[in-house]
C-alpha cells in the first residue's frame, strides 16, 4: 500500500513538473490520418511554440460529450467539428467566440469559411463536396433523382440518415423532385417507397468502397474525401455533376469556453490556416483547403474540393437547420424507411 501511495505521489509530482516546465495545448480532432497530421501540423507547430500538443481523437459524439462533461474545468482547448456539431456546442455554451483579428491568415479564407456559425463561433478549415460516384459503363447519372431510377434499382447504396452525408444527399434528392422544404418529408417518402431497391444504407464511406469494388452497387452519394478509394479500383468510375449541383459539408475549428489557453490555441489555429500548412494538407490529399491562396497541381486538385468556382457552387445545408431538424428527420426515417 505504501509503495502505491508513493508511486501515485511521484506521478502527480512529475505531471505537475511537466506542466510547469512546458506549455501544453490539448486539441480534439477526428481520428483519421493522424499520422500525417502529426508529421505535417503537430510536430512543426511544437517546434515553433516550444509547447506540447496533446491530441484527443474519436467520433463527434464521443468528443462532444467529453467537452460537455468537463465544461467547468475544460480539458480541451480547441476542437475541430462539423458545422452543425459545433453550432450545437455553441448553443450549449461550451464555446467562446474566436478573436479572428488575431488570425493573420483569416483574410485569405474563402468567404463561406469565415463565419459559418455566426458570432465568430467557428472558422472553417476544410470542406468537401458530396456528389454521386457511379459506374460509368453501367449508367449515367445526371440528376440526384437518378438514384431512385429504375436503371439503378437494386444497384444503389444511400448514406444512412445518421451520417453526415445523409441529410445533404436527401436534400438534393428533394431538390431534384422539386421540393426543397427543410422537413425533408418529400425525399424521405420517395426513398421509403423505393427502400427495397436500395442495397443498403451505409454508415461508413470505407464500407462503400468495398461494395463498389465487389460490384454490389453501381452508384452512391459520397463525400469527395473518399473519392480516392473509388477512382483507382480498376472499374470505370465517374464523379457525377448533377444538374441540381453538388452538396457537401464543412468542418470548423472552435475554441472551448474558459479554457485559459486562448493565446496558444489561436496561434495553433492560425498556423493550421496558413497557406503553407493548408497546401501541405492538400498535397497529402487529407483536407481540401479553406485558404483561397493555396495552389495545387491539377492532379491534386482533381482529388479535392478545390477552387473558388467549385466552392461557390456547393449547396451546403445550413447548420442550424441540421441541428433543429435532426430529430424529426430521424423519426420520419425510422417510421417510413426502417419500418
Amino acid at each position, binding site marked *: 500500500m505504501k509503495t502505491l501511495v508513493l508511486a501515485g505521489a511521484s506521478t502527480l509530482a512529475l505531471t505537475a513538473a511537466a506542466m510547469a516546465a512546458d506549455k501544453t495545448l490539448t486539441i480534439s480532432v477526428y481520428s483519421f490520418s493522424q499520422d500525417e497530421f502529426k508529421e505535417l501540423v503537430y510536430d512543426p507547430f511544437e517546434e515553433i511554440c516550444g509547447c506540447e500538443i496533446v491530441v484527443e481523437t474519436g467520433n463527434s*459524439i464521443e468528443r462532444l460529450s467529453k467537452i460537455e462533461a468537463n465544461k467547468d474545468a475544460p480539458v480541451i482547448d480547441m476542437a475541430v467539428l462539423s458545422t452543425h456539431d459545433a453550432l450545437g456546442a455553441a448553443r450549449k455554451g461550451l464555446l467562446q467566440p474566436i478573436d479572428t483579428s488575431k488570425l493573420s491568415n483569416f483574410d485569405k479564407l474563402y468567404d463561406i469559411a469565415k463565419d459559418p456559425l455566426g458570432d465568430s463561433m467557428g472558422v472553417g478549415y476544410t470542406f468537401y463536396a458530396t456528389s454521386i460516384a457511379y459506374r460509368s459503363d453501367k449508367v449515367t447519372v445526371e440528376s440526384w433523382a437518378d438514384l431512385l431510377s429504375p436503371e439503378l434499382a437494386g444497384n444503389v447504396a444511400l448514406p444512412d440518415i*445518421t451520417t453526415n452525408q445523409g441529410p445533404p444527399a436527401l436534400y438534393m434528392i428533394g431538390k431534384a423532385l422539386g421540393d426543397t422544404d427543410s422537413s425533408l418529408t418529400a425525399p424521405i417518402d420517395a426513398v421509403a417507397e423505393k427502400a427495397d431497391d436500395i442495397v*443498403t444504407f451505409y454508415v461508413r464511406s470505407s464500407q462503400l468502397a468495398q461494395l463498389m469494388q*465487389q460490384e454490389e452497387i453501381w452508384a452512391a452519394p459520397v463525400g469527395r474525401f473518399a473519392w480516392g478509394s473509388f477512382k483507382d479500383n480498376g472499374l470505370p468510375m465517374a464523379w457525377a455533376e448533377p444538374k441540381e449541383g453538388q452538396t457537401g459539408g464543412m468542418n470548423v475549428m472552435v475554441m472551448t469556453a474558459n479554457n485559459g489557453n486562448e493565446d496558444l490555441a489561436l496561434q495553433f489555429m492560425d498556423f493550421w490556416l496558413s497557406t503553407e500548412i493548408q497546401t501541405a494538407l492538400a498535397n497529402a490529399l487529407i483536407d481540401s483547403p479553406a485558404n483561397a491562396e493555396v495552389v495545387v497541381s491539377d492532379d491534386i486538385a482533381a482529388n479535392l474540393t478545390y477552387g473558388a468556382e467549385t466552392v461557390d457552387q456547393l449547396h451546403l445545408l445550413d447548420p442550424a437547420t441540421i441541428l433543429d431538424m435532426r430529430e424529426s428527420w430521424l423519426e420520419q426515417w*425510422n417510421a417510413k424507411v426502417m419500418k
Partner: protein
Amino acid sequence: MFENRAIGLALVLPAAIFAAALFLLPVGILLSEAFRTDTGWSVSAYGEFFASSRNQTVFFRTLKLASLVAGVSAVVGYAAAFAIVNLPASSRGRMFGLVTLPLMISPVARTYAWLVILGRTGFVNKFLVDLGITDTPLRILFTETAVFIGLLQLFLPLMIISLVSAMENMPRDAVPAARILGANWLQVFWRVILPLTREGLVIGGTLVFTGSMTAYITPAILGGSKVLMLETLLYQRVTVANDFVSASVIAMILITMSFSANLLLKRLATARKSR
C-alpha cells in the same frame, strides 16, 4: 477445505471486491439509467421503447434469428456430434480440431469472408448462376438470410463441442441396447440420446442463443442498417444519438432474454427428466 472458514473467505475477498467495484457496480449504474426518470424511478422507458414499431421489428427480428440459429445448430450439431463420437479415437481428435478451428479465427475476418462469398459476384451466386438455378445473381447481402448464415457459422462450433462432450459421457452401450430392444432411430434419439445429452443441449443452446443475440460484428457487416438487431441498434443509439436511456433499455432486454433462454432450456430439460 480450510479448517478456518475465515481463511477461505479472505482468499476470495480480493477477487470479489475487484469484480464488485469494477464490474457489478458500473454495470448496475449503467442499467439503472433505464429506470431513472426526472420524477423518480419508473419503467416508462420500456413502454416508450416498445411503442415504436421500428423497435418492435428489431426486437422480434433478434428473437427470431437467435432462436432460428440455436434451433438449426442443434439439429446440425446432433448429427455432427453423433458422427464425431462414433469415429475411431485418432480421427475423432482430427475432426474435433476441425470443428474448433474456426473459433480461433477472428469473427471480423470470418464475417468479411462472408461479405465476399455471399456477394453478387461471389462464390455462392456464381455457383447458382452456373448451375442455371437462377438467371441473375440473388441479393443475399444485407438481408436476414445473410445474418442468419453468418451467425450460424459463428456459433455452430459451440453447439457441436457441447454435444460432443455430452455424448462422450453417455454409456457406450446405451444406443446398441436400445436398438437390440427394437427401438427405431427416431425412438433411440428421442428416448435415449436426447435425455442423456440434455445438459449439453442446454449449455450449447444457451451459448448459441445468447451469442447470436448479442453478436455485433456479424449483423453490422452482413445486415447493415436495413437489418438492425438489438445489438446494432444499441450501438446506433449510443454513437449517433447519444441516447443512453434507450441503450440501457436494450442492454436490460438483452440480459433478460439471455437469462430467460437459459432458464427455459433448463426447465425443458428437467421437465423431461421427471417424467
